[in-house]
Protein backbone atom coordinates (compact mmCIF):
# COMPACT_ATOMS: atom_id res chain seq x y z
CA UNK A 1 0.00 0.00 0.00
CA UNK A 2 1.67 3.19 -1.14
CA UNK A 3 0.10 5.17 1.68
CA UNK A 4 2.25 3.45 4.28
CA UNK A 5 5.43 4.08 2.40
CA UNK A 6 4.50 7.65 1.75
CA UNK A 7 3.76 8.28 5.38
CA UNK A 8 7.18 6.98 6.31
CA UNK A 9 8.86 9.12 3.71
CA UNK A 10 6.84 12.11 4.78
CA UNK A 11 7.74 11.52 8.42
CA UNK A 12 11.39 11.30 7.55
CA UNK A 13 11.29 14.44 5.46
CA UNK A 14 9.31 16.42 7.99
CA UNK A 15 11.63 15.39 10.82
CA UNK A 16 14.71 16.29 8.82
CA UNK A 17 13.34 19.69 7.94
CA UNK A 18 12.35 20.37 11.53
CA UNK A 19 15.81 19.49 12.78
CA UNK A 20 17.59 21.78 10.34
CA UNK A 21 15.11 24.64 10.52
CA UNK A 22 14.92 24.41 14.29
CA UNK A 23 18.68 24.57 14.71
CA UNK A 24 18.92 27.52 12.37
CA UNK A 25 16.16 29.38 14.16
CA UNK A 26 17.93 28.92 17.46
CA UNK A 27 20.70 31.32 16.48
CA UNK A 28 18.73 34.57 16.41
CA UNK A 29 16.76 33.56 19.48
CA UNK A 30 19.92 32.86 21.45
CA UNK A 31 21.37 36.18 20.34
CA UNK A 32 18.27 37.97 21.52
CA UNK A 33 18.54 36.25 24.88
CA UNK A 34 22.19 37.20 25.19
CA UNK A 35 21.38 40.79 24.35
CA UNK A 36 18.62 40.87 26.90
CA UNK A 37 20.84 39.47 29.61
CA UNK A 38 23.16 42.31 28.80
CA UNK A 39 26.46 40.62 28.92
CA UNK A 40 29.00 38.83 26.81
CA UNK A 41 27.55 35.78 28.39
CA UNK A 42 25.03 35.36 31.12
CA UNK A 43 27.12 35.91 34.18
CA UNK A 44 24.65 36.07 36.96
CA UNK A 45 25.65 38.16 39.89
CA UNK A 46 26.04 35.31 42.29
CA UNK A 47 24.49 35.49 45.63
CA UNK A 48 27.15 33.88 47.74
CA UNK A 49 30.74 33.86 46.70
CA UNK A 50 32.03 30.46 47.67
CA UNK A 51 35.53 30.25 49.03
CA UNK A 52 38.13 29.02 46.62
CA UNK A 53 39.05 26.29 49.06
CA UNK A 54 35.53 24.92 49.20
CA UNK A 55 35.17 25.08 45.47
CA UNK A 56 38.49 23.38 45.05
CA UNK A 57 37.36 20.49 47.17
CA UNK A 58 34.05 20.27 45.35
CA UNK A 59 35.78 20.22 42.02
CA UNK A 60 37.12 16.76 42.72
CA UNK A 61 40.56 17.32 41.37
CA UNK A 62 39.65 19.71 38.61
CA UNK A 63 40.83 22.88 40.33
CA UNK A 64 42.86 23.85 37.31
CA UNK A 65 39.86 23.67 35.04
CA UNK A 66 37.65 25.46 37.50
CA UNK A 67 40.31 28.09 37.97
CA UNK A 68 40.46 28.64 34.22
CA UNK A 69 36.72 28.99 34.13
CA UNK A 70 36.71 31.54 36.91
CA UNK A 71 39.53 33.37 35.23
CA UNK A 72 37.53 33.70 32.03
CA UNK A 73 34.50 34.74 34.03
CA UNK A 74 36.59 37.45 35.66
CA UNK A 75 37.83 38.72 32.32
CA UNK A 76 34.36 38.58 30.77
CA UNK A 77 32.86 40.23 33.82
CA UNK A 78 35.32 43.04 33.60
CA UNK A 79 35.23 43.37 29.84
CA UNK A 80 31.48 43.42 29.52
CA UNK A 81 31.09 45.94 32.25
CA UNK A 82 33.60 48.38 30.89
CA UNK A 83 31.99 48.00 27.50
CA UNK A 84 28.72 48.89 29.10
CA UNK A 85 30.42 51.75 30.91
CA UNK A 86 29.26 50.39 34.21
CA UNK A 87 30.87 51.82 37.25
CA UNK A 88 30.44 48.92 39.63
CA UNK A 89 32.80 45.99 39.65
CA UNK A 90 32.01 44.52 43.04
CA UNK A 91 32.53 40.95 41.97
CA UNK A 92 35.91 41.45 40.36
CA UNK A 93 37.91 41.07 43.55
CA UNK A 94 36.05 37.96 44.75
CA UNK A 95 36.25 36.38 41.30
CA UNK A 96 39.98 36.93 41.19
CA UNK A 97 40.37 35.71 44.71
CA UNK A 98 38.57 32.48 43.90
CA UNK A 99 40.60 32.08 40.73
CA UNK A 100 43.89 32.41 42.55
CA UNK A 101 42.77 30.25 45.43
CA UNK A 102 41.91 27.48 42.99
CA UNK A 103 45.17 27.91 41.17
CA UNK A 104 47.74 29.91 43.17
CA UNK A 105 50.12 29.83 40.24
CA UNK A 106 47.92 31.46 37.67
CA UNK A 107 50.17 34.46 37.41
CA UNK A 108 48.16 36.38 34.92
CA UNK A 109 45.20 36.48 37.26
CA UNK A 110 47.25 38.36 39.83
CA UNK A 111 48.68 40.80 37.29
CA UNK A 112 45.37 41.45 35.63
CA UNK A 113 43.79 41.92 38.99
CA UNK A 114 46.44 44.36 40.11
CA UNK A 115 45.87 46.71 37.26
CA UNK A 116 42.12 46.61 36.92
CA UNK A 117 41.42 46.63 40.59
CA UNK A 118 43.58 49.71 41.04
CA UNK A 119 42.22 51.78 38.21
CA UNK A 120 39.48 54.19 39.02
CA UNK A 121 36.04 53.58 37.59
CA UNK A 122 34.93 53.33 34.89
CA UNK A 123 38.25 51.86 33.81
CA UNK A 124 38.61 49.67 36.84
CA UNK A 125 37.19 48.80 40.19
CA UNK A 126 38.96 51.54 42.07
CA UNK A 127 39.96 49.19 44.87
CA UNK A 128 43.71 49.58 45.32
CA UNK A 129 43.60 47.89 48.71
CA UNK A 130 42.07 44.80 47.18
CA UNK A 131 44.76 44.91 44.52
CA UNK A 132 47.50 45.07 47.15
CA UNK A 133 45.94 42.13 48.92
CA UNK A 134 45.86 40.11 45.74
CA UNK A 135 49.46 40.82 44.82
CA UNK A 136 50.67 40.06 48.31
CA UNK A 137 49.04 36.64 48.02
CA UNK A 138 50.69 36.26 44.68
CA UNK A 139 54.08 36.92 46.20
CA UNK A 140 53.44 34.45 49.01
CA UNK A 141 52.40 31.72 46.60
CA UNK A 142 55.01 32.48 43.97
CA UNK A 143 58.07 33.81 45.79
CA UNK A 144 60.23 33.42 42.71
CA UNK A 145 58.16 35.65 40.53
CA UNK A 146 59.85 39.04 40.98
CA UNK A 147 57.44 40.86 38.67
CA UNK A 148 54.89 40.90 41.44
CA UNK A 149 57.10 43.46 43.13
CA UNK A 150 56.80 45.52 40.03
CA UNK A 151 53.03 45.24 40.21
CA UNK A 152 53.14 46.17 43.86
CA UNK A 153 55.21 49.18 42.97
CA UNK A 154 52.72 50.12 40.33
CA UNK A 155 49.80 50.04 42.75
CA UNK A 156 51.56 52.23 45.28
CA UNK A 157 52.67 54.61 42.56
CA UNK A 158 49.59 55.02 40.49
CA UNK A 159 46.55 55.34 42.70
CA UNK A 160 47.91 55.54 46.17
CA UNK A 161 50.58 58.00 45.08
CA UNK A 162 52.79 56.60 47.84
CA UNK A 163 56.10 57.13 46.11
CA UNK A 164 58.21 55.99 48.99
CA UNK A 165 56.60 52.61 49.20
CA UNK A 166 56.51 52.35 45.43
CA UNK A 167 60.25 52.90 45.18
CA UNK A 168 60.78 50.42 47.97
CA UNK A 169 58.82 47.79 46.11
CA UNK A 170 60.81 48.33 42.95
CA UNK A 171 64.01 48.12 44.92
CA UNK A 172 63.10 44.85 46.61
CA UNK A 173 62.04 43.52 43.26
CA UNK A 174 65.35 44.43 41.71
CA UNK A 175 67.11 42.40 44.37
CA UNK A 176 65.14 39.21 43.62
CA UNK A 177 66.84 36.58 41.47
CA UNK A 178 66.06 37.41 37.88
CA UNK A 179 65.08 40.95 38.71
CA UNK A 180 65.98 43.17 35.78
CA UNK A 181 68.06 46.27 36.03
CA UNK A 182 65.30 48.62 35.08
CA UNK A 183 63.68 47.93 38.44
CA UNK A 184 66.50 49.62 40.23
CA UNK A 185 66.48 52.50 37.83
CA UNK A 186 62.78 52.87 38.35
CA UNK A 187 63.21 52.93 42.08
CA UNK A 188 65.69 55.74 41.84
CA UNK A 189 63.60 57.69 39.42
CA UNK A 190 60.48 57.40 41.54
CA UNK A 191 62.33 58.66 44.57
CA UNK A 192 63.64 61.56 42.64
CA UNK A 193 60.71 62.47 40.43
CA UNK A 194 57.68 60.63 41.65
CA UNK A 195 54.62 61.95 39.97
CA UNK A 196 56.56 63.25 37.05
CA UNK A 197 54.91 62.41 33.73
CA UNK A 198 58.15 61.07 32.34
CA UNK A 199 58.43 58.59 35.21
CA UNK A 200 54.84 57.54 34.84
CA UNK A 201 55.45 57.09 31.15
CA UNK A 202 58.26 54.69 31.82
CA UNK A 203 56.24 52.67 34.26
CA UNK A 204 53.39 52.30 31.83
CA UNK A 205 55.77 51.53 28.99
CA UNK A 206 57.11 48.58 30.99
CA UNK A 207 53.56 47.38 31.50
CA UNK A 208 52.77 47.82 27.82
CA UNK A 209 55.76 45.75 26.76
CA UNK A 210 55.00 42.98 29.23
CA UNK A 211 51.27 42.87 28.72
CA UNK A 212 50.11 39.28 28.52
CA UNK A 213 46.75 39.79 26.98
CA UNK A 214 44.87 42.20 24.81
CA UNK A 215 43.01 43.93 27.59
CA UNK A 216 46.16 44.68 29.54
CA UNK A 217 47.88 45.95 26.43
CA UNK A 218 44.99 48.19 25.47
CA UNK A 219 44.84 49.56 28.94
CA UNK A 220 48.53 50.41 28.97
CA UNK A 221 48.23 51.97 25.54
CA UNK A 222 45.52 54.42 26.47
CA UNK A 223 47.48 55.47 29.51
CA UNK A 224 50.58 56.00 27.44
CA UNK A 225 48.80 58.19 24.93
CA UNK A 226 47.28 60.19 27.74
CA UNK A 227 50.68 60.78 29.28
CA UNK A 228 52.19 61.58 25.92
CA UNK A 229 49.49 64.12 25.35
CA UNK A 230 50.04 65.64 28.79
CA UNK A 231 53.74 66.06 28.10
CA UNK A 232 53.08 67.49 24.69
CA UNK A 233 50.43 69.82 26.02
CA UNK A 234 52.75 71.08 28.73
CA UNK A 235 55.36 71.88 26.13
CA UNK A 236 52.79 73.58 23.95
CA UNK A 237 51.53 75.61 26.89
CA UNK A 238 55.09 76.75 27.59
CA UNK A 239 55.36 77.71 23.94
CA UNK A 240 52.14 79.66 24.08
CA UNK A 241 53.40 81.45 27.16
CA UNK A 242 56.59 82.51 25.42
CA UNK A 243 54.64 83.58 22.34
CA UNK A 244 52.46 85.77 24.48
CA UNK A 245 55.47 87.35 26.13
CA UNK A 246 57.11 87.89 22.79
CA UNK A 247 54.13 89.16 20.84
CA UNK A 248 52.20 90.81 23.62
CA UNK A 249 48.94 89.06 22.90
CA UNK A 250 47.76 85.45 23.40
CA UNK A 251 47.63 83.27 20.34
CA UNK A 252 44.18 82.50 19.02
CA UNK A 253 45.11 79.40 17.13
CA UNK A 254 48.05 77.28 16.23
CA UNK A 255 47.88 78.52 12.67
CA UNK A 256 49.10 81.85 14.04
CA UNK A 257 52.14 80.21 15.52
CA UNK A 258 52.88 78.36 12.30
CA UNK A 259 52.51 81.55 10.28
CA UNK A 260 54.76 83.37 12.72
CA UNK A 261 57.33 80.64 12.36
CA UNK A 262 57.09 79.38 15.94
CA UNK A 263 55.95 75.95 14.81
CA UNK A 264 56.83 73.97 11.76
CA UNK A 265 53.38 72.51 11.38
CA UNK A 266 50.12 72.07 13.22
CA UNK A 267 50.50 69.93 16.36
CA UNK A 268 48.54 66.69 16.50
CA UNK A 269 47.74 64.64 19.57
CA UNK A 270 48.65 60.93 19.72
CA UNK A 271 45.24 60.01 18.32
CA UNK A 272 45.88 62.10 15.21
CA UNK A 273 43.50 64.90 16.09
CA UNK A 274 44.89 68.46 16.04
CA UNK A 275 45.22 70.35 19.31
CA UNK A 276 43.31 73.54 19.66
CA UNK A 277 43.58 76.53 21.90
CA UNK A 278 40.79 76.75 24.42
CA UNK A 279 38.88 79.83 25.54
CA UNK A 280 41.19 80.14 28.52
CA UNK A 281 44.18 80.43 26.23
CA UNK A 282 45.53 77.01 27.17
CA UNK A 283 46.02 74.00 24.94
CA UNK A 284 43.10 71.63 24.77
CA UNK A 285 42.26 68.49 22.90
CA UNK A 286 40.30 68.65 19.69
CA UNK A 287 36.67 67.59 19.94
CA UNK A 288 37.24 64.38 18.05
CA UNK A 289 40.23 63.34 20.12
CA UNK A 290 40.45 59.81 21.40
CA UNK A 291 42.88 60.65 24.13
CA UNK A 292 41.54 60.05 27.61
CA UNK A 293 43.06 62.71 29.80
CA UNK A 294 40.82 62.00 32.74
CA UNK A 295 42.79 58.83 33.36
CA UNK A 296 45.50 60.90 34.85
CA UNK A 297 43.44 62.68 37.41
Amino acid at each position, binding site marked *: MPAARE*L*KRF*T*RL*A*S*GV*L*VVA*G*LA*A*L*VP*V*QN*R*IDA*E*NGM*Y*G*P*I*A*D*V*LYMPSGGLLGRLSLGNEGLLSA*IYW*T*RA*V*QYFGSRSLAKQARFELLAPLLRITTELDPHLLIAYRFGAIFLTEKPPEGAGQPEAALDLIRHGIVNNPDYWRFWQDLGFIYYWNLKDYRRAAQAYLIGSRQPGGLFFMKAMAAKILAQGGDPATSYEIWMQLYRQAE*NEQLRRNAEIHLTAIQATIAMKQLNDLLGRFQEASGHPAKSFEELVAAGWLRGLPFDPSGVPYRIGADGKVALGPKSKVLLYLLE
Partner: protein
Amino acid sequence: MARIWSITWHTFKEAARDRVLYNLIVFALLMIGASILFGQISVGIEGIILVDLGLSSIAVFGLLMAILIGIGLVSKEIERRTIFNLLSKPVHRFEFILGKYFGLLVTLAVNTGVMAAGFYLALFYQKRSLGPEDLLPLGAIYFILLQFALVVAWALFFSCLSTPVLSAVFTFSIYVAGHFLSDLRFFGQETHSRLVSGVTTLLYYLLPNFADFDVITRTAHGDKISGLLFTANSLYALLYVTVLISAAVLVFEEKEFR
Protein backbone atom coordinates in the same frame (compact mmCIF):
# COMPACT_ATOMS: atom_id res chain seq x y z
CA MET B 1 -4.13 12.11 17.85
CA ALA B 2 -6.23 10.06 20.19
CA ARG B 3 -3.51 7.45 20.28
CA ILE B 4 -0.90 10.03 21.23
CA TRP B 5 -3.11 11.20 24.03
CA SER B 6 -3.59 7.63 25.24
CA ILE B 7 0.14 7.00 25.25
CA THR B 8 0.66 10.29 27.07
CA TRP B 9 -1.90 9.47 29.72
CA HIS B 10 -0.68 5.95 30.40
CA THR B 11 2.95 6.98 30.39
CA PHE B 12 2.05 9.55 33.01
CA LYS B 13 0.19 6.96 35.07
CA GLU B 14 3.08 4.56 34.96
CA ALA B 15 5.69 7.19 35.76
CA ALA B 16 3.67 8.93 38.44
CA ARG B 17 3.48 5.74 40.47
CA ASP B 18 7.20 5.28 40.49
CA ARG B 19 8.41 4.90 44.06
CA VAL B 20 11.69 6.66 43.40
CA LEU B 21 9.93 9.82 42.33
CA TYR B 22 8.04 9.96 45.57
CA ASN B 23 11.27 9.77 47.49
CA LEU B 24 12.75 12.57 45.47
CA ILE B 25 9.76 14.78 46.08
CA VAL B 26 9.96 14.11 49.78
CA PHE B 27 13.62 15.09 49.79
CA ALA B 28 12.86 18.24 47.89
CA LEU B 29 10.17 19.20 50.36
CA LEU B 30 12.54 18.50 53.22
CA MET B 31 15.11 20.78 51.68
CA ILE B 32 12.59 23.53 51.31
CA GLY B 33 11.60 23.12 54.92
CA ALA B 34 15.23 23.23 55.92
CA SER B 35 15.78 26.51 54.14
CA ILE B 36 13.45 28.12 56.63
CA LEU B 37 15.82 26.99 59.37
CA PHE B 38 18.84 28.37 57.56
CA GLY B 39 17.10 31.67 57.29
CA GLN B 40 16.57 31.81 61.01
CA ILE B 41 20.22 31.21 61.73
CA SER B 42 21.47 34.21 59.84
CA VAL B 43 20.41 37.81 59.93
CA GLY B 44 18.28 39.71 57.51
CA ILE B 45 18.42 37.32 54.59
CA GLU B 46 15.70 34.82 55.46
CA GLY B 47 13.67 35.74 52.46
CA ILE B 48 16.59 35.52 50.08
CA ILE B 49 17.78 32.19 51.42
CA LEU B 50 14.36 30.61 51.25
CA VAL B 51 13.84 31.64 47.68
CA ASP B 52 17.35 30.75 46.62
CA LEU B 53 17.62 27.42 48.38
CA GLY B 54 14.01 26.49 47.77
CA LEU B 55 14.17 27.12 44.06
CA SER B 56 17.54 25.42 43.80
CA SER B 57 16.12 22.34 45.49
CA ILE B 58 13.29 22.23 43.00
CA ALA B 59 15.80 22.59 40.19
CA VAL B 60 18.18 19.92 41.46
CA PHE B 61 15.65 17.30 42.44
CA GLY B 62 13.62 17.99 39.37
CA LEU B 63 16.72 17.44 37.29
CA LEU B 64 17.27 14.08 38.96
CA MET B 65 13.69 13.18 38.25
CA ALA B 66 13.98 14.32 34.67
CA ILE B 67 17.00 12.14 34.10
CA LEU B 68 15.52 9.14 35.89
CA ILE B 69 12.25 9.41 34.04
CA GLY B 70 14.19 10.06 30.90
CA ILE B 71 15.91 6.71 31.20
CA GLY B 72 12.61 4.98 31.33
CA LEU B 73 11.51 6.77 28.23
CA VAL B 74 12.70 4.57 25.47
CA SER B 75 15.81 2.68 26.41
CA LYS B 76 14.24 0.96 29.39
CA GLU B 77 11.25 0.07 27.25
CA ILE B 78 13.53 -1.46 24.68
CA GLU B 79 15.58 -3.30 27.23
CA ARG B 80 12.56 -4.70 28.99
CA ARG B 81 10.80 -5.42 25.71
CA THR B 82 7.63 -3.68 26.82
CA ILE B 83 7.86 -1.80 23.57
CA PHE B 84 6.89 -4.86 21.56
CA ASN B 85 3.42 -4.68 22.98
CA LEU B 86 2.94 -1.19 21.65
CA LEU B 87 4.64 -1.26 18.31
CA SER B 88 2.86 -4.42 17.23
CA LYS B 89 -0.38 -2.50 17.39
CA PRO B 90 -1.52 0.08 14.85
CA VAL B 91 0.67 2.79 16.32
CA HIS B 92 2.99 4.90 14.22
CA ARG B 93 6.46 5.12 15.62
CA PHE B 94 6.35 8.89 15.78
CA GLU B 95 3.13 8.68 17.79
CA PHE B 96 5.00 6.60 20.32
CA ILE B 97 7.75 9.18 20.63
CA LEU B 98 5.40 12.11 20.97
CA GLY B 99 3.15 10.32 23.44
CA LYS B 100 6.12 9.32 25.56
CA TYR B 101 7.57 12.79 25.61
CA PHE B 102 4.36 14.50 26.58
CA GLY B 103 3.60 11.85 29.17
CA LEU B 104 6.90 12.42 30.88
CA LEU B 105 6.67 16.18 30.57
CA VAL B 106 3.29 16.06 32.27
CA THR B 107 4.74 13.90 35.03
CA LEU B 108 7.53 16.39 35.60
CA ALA B 109 5.12 19.27 35.55
CA VAL B 110 2.92 17.65 38.16
CA ASN B 111 5.90 16.84 40.37
CA THR B 112 7.20 20.35 40.01
CA GLY B 113 3.76 21.62 40.89
CA VAL B 114 3.86 19.63 44.11
CA MET B 115 7.27 20.98 44.97
CA ALA B 116 6.18 24.49 44.10
CA ALA B 117 3.19 24.13 46.39
CA GLY B 118 5.56 23.08 49.16
CA PHE B 119 7.69 26.08 48.42
CA TYR B 120 4.82 28.51 48.65
CA LEU B 121 3.65 26.87 51.83
CA ALA B 122 7.07 27.48 53.32
CA LEU B 123 7.06 31.05 52.04
CA PHE B 124 3.68 31.66 53.59
CA TYR B 125 4.82 30.15 56.86
CA GLN B 126 7.79 32.46 56.91
CA LYS B 127 6.23 35.68 55.76
CA ARG B 128 2.78 35.25 57.25
CA SER B 129 1.26 36.91 54.22
CA LEU B 130 1.97 36.90 50.55
CA GLY B 131 2.15 39.90 48.30
CA PRO B 132 2.42 40.46 44.55
CA GLU B 133 6.22 40.33 44.72
CA ASP B 134 5.87 36.69 45.70
CA LEU B 135 4.75 35.90 42.20
CA LEU B 136 8.32 36.30 41.04
CA PRO B 137 9.41 32.80 42.05
CA LEU B 138 6.66 31.47 39.78
CA GLY B 139 8.55 32.94 36.89
CA ALA B 140 11.70 31.19 38.03
CA ILE B 141 9.78 27.94 38.38
CA TYR B 142 8.52 28.36 34.84
CA PHE B 143 12.10 28.71 33.65
CA ILE B 144 13.05 25.63 35.63
CA LEU B 145 10.25 23.76 33.86
CA LEU B 146 11.62 24.93 30.53
CA GLN B 147 14.96 23.42 31.52
CA PHE B 148 13.26 20.16 32.37
CA ALA B 149 11.51 20.11 29.02
CA LEU B 150 14.92 20.33 27.40
CA VAL B 151 16.51 17.72 29.63
CA VAL B 152 13.73 15.23 29.05
CA ALA B 153 13.97 15.81 25.30
CA TRP B 154 17.68 15.06 25.43
CA ALA B 155 17.01 11.96 27.50
CA LEU B 156 14.49 10.87 24.89
CA PHE B 157 16.93 11.41 22.09
CA PHE B 158 19.76 9.52 23.76
CA SER B 159 17.33 6.80 24.74
CA CYS B 160 16.75 6.02 21.09
CA LEU B 161 20.44 5.50 20.56
CA SER B 162 21.76 3.89 23.66
CA THR B 163 21.32 1.86 26.84
CA PRO B 164 19.55 3.25 29.89
CA VAL B 165 22.73 3.87 31.85
CA LEU B 166 24.56 5.55 29.01
CA SER B 167 21.53 7.68 28.20
CA ALA B 168 21.51 8.95 31.76
CA VAL B 169 25.22 9.69 31.65
CA PHE B 170 24.99 11.53 28.34
CA THR B 171 22.00 13.54 29.42
CA PHE B 172 23.69 14.62 32.61
CA SER B 173 26.87 15.52 30.75
CA ILE B 174 24.96 17.66 28.28
CA TYR B 175 23.28 19.40 31.17
CA VAL B 176 26.60 20.26 32.78
CA ALA B 177 28.25 21.27 29.53
CA GLY B 178 25.27 23.42 28.67
CA HIS B 179 26.09 25.72 31.56
CA PHE B 180 29.55 26.59 30.31
CA LEU B 181 28.86 27.47 26.72
CA SER B 182 29.79 31.14 26.98
CA ASP B 183 33.05 30.15 28.63
CA LEU B 184 33.64 27.74 25.79
CA ARG B 185 33.02 30.41 23.20
CA PHE B 186 35.21 32.88 25.04
CA PHE B 187 38.05 30.35 25.23
CA GLY B 188 37.73 29.83 21.51
CA GLN B 189 37.86 33.51 20.76
CA GLU B 190 40.91 34.01 22.95
CA THR B 191 42.91 31.44 21.04
CA HIS B 192 42.98 33.71 17.98
CA SER B 193 42.70 30.68 15.78
CA ARG B 194 39.93 31.03 13.24
CA LEU B 195 39.35 27.30 13.19
CA VAL B 196 39.06 26.86 16.94
CA SER B 197 37.04 30.02 17.28
CA GLY B 198 34.70 28.87 14.53
CA VAL B 199 34.23 25.48 16.12
CA THR B 200 33.51 26.87 19.56
CA THR B 201 31.04 29.37 18.15
CA LEU B 202 29.31 26.58 16.29
CA LEU B 203 29.13 24.56 19.48
CA TYR B 204 27.80 27.58 21.31
CA TYR B 205 24.73 27.63 19.11
CA LEU B 206 24.43 23.91 18.66
CA LEU B 207 24.59 22.73 22.24
CA PRO B 208 21.72 23.56 24.58
CA ASN B 209 22.37 26.74 26.49
CA PHE B 210 21.02 25.83 29.89
CA ALA B 211 22.59 28.88 31.44
CA ASP B 212 19.93 30.99 29.70
CA PHE B 213 17.39 29.69 32.18
CA ASP B 214 19.37 30.43 35.35
CA VAL B 215 17.29 33.13 36.96
CA ILE B 216 17.14 31.86 40.51
CA THR B 217 19.64 34.38 41.81
CA ARG B 218 17.92 37.28 40.14
CA THR B 219 14.62 36.17 41.55
CA ALA B 220 16.05 35.85 45.04
CA HIS B 221 17.28 39.43 44.75
CA GLY B 222 13.79 40.48 43.82
CA ASP B 223 14.65 41.49 40.26
CA LYS B 224 11.93 41.08 37.71
CA ILE B 225 12.47 39.02 34.62
CA SER B 226 11.58 40.93 31.50
CA GLY B 227 8.70 39.85 29.32
CA LEU B 228 11.07 39.64 26.40
CA LEU B 229 13.20 37.13 28.26
CA PHE B 230 10.12 35.04 28.96
CA THR B 231 9.18 35.01 25.33
CA ALA B 232 12.67 34.44 24.02
CA ASN B 233 13.46 31.61 26.40
CA SER B 234 10.11 29.94 25.78
CA LEU B 235 10.78 30.14 22.08
CA TYR B 236 14.28 28.78 22.53
CA ALA B 237 13.01 25.83 24.53
CA LEU B 238 10.23 25.18 22.04
CA LEU B 239 12.58 25.23 19.07
CA TYR B 240 15.20 23.07 20.72
CA VAL B 241 12.68 20.51 21.92
CA THR B 242 11.26 20.36 18.40
CA VAL B 243 14.73 19.73 17.03
CA LEU B 244 15.39 16.95 19.52
CA ILE B 245 12.05 15.24 19.10
CA SER B 246 12.35 15.37 15.33
CA ALA B 247 15.83 13.89 15.56
CA ALA B 248 14.51 11.21 17.88
CA VAL B 249 11.73 10.40 15.43
CA LEU B 250 14.25 10.13 12.61
CA VAL B 251 16.34 7.68 14.57
CA PHE B 252 13.39 5.78 15.93
CA GLU B 253 11.78 5.21 12.55
CA GLU B 254 14.77 3.20 11.47
CA LYS B 255 15.39 1.42 14.71
CA GLU B 256 15.17 -2.34 14.82
CA PHE B 257 14.02 -4.23 17.87
CA ARG B 258 15.63 -7.58 18.02
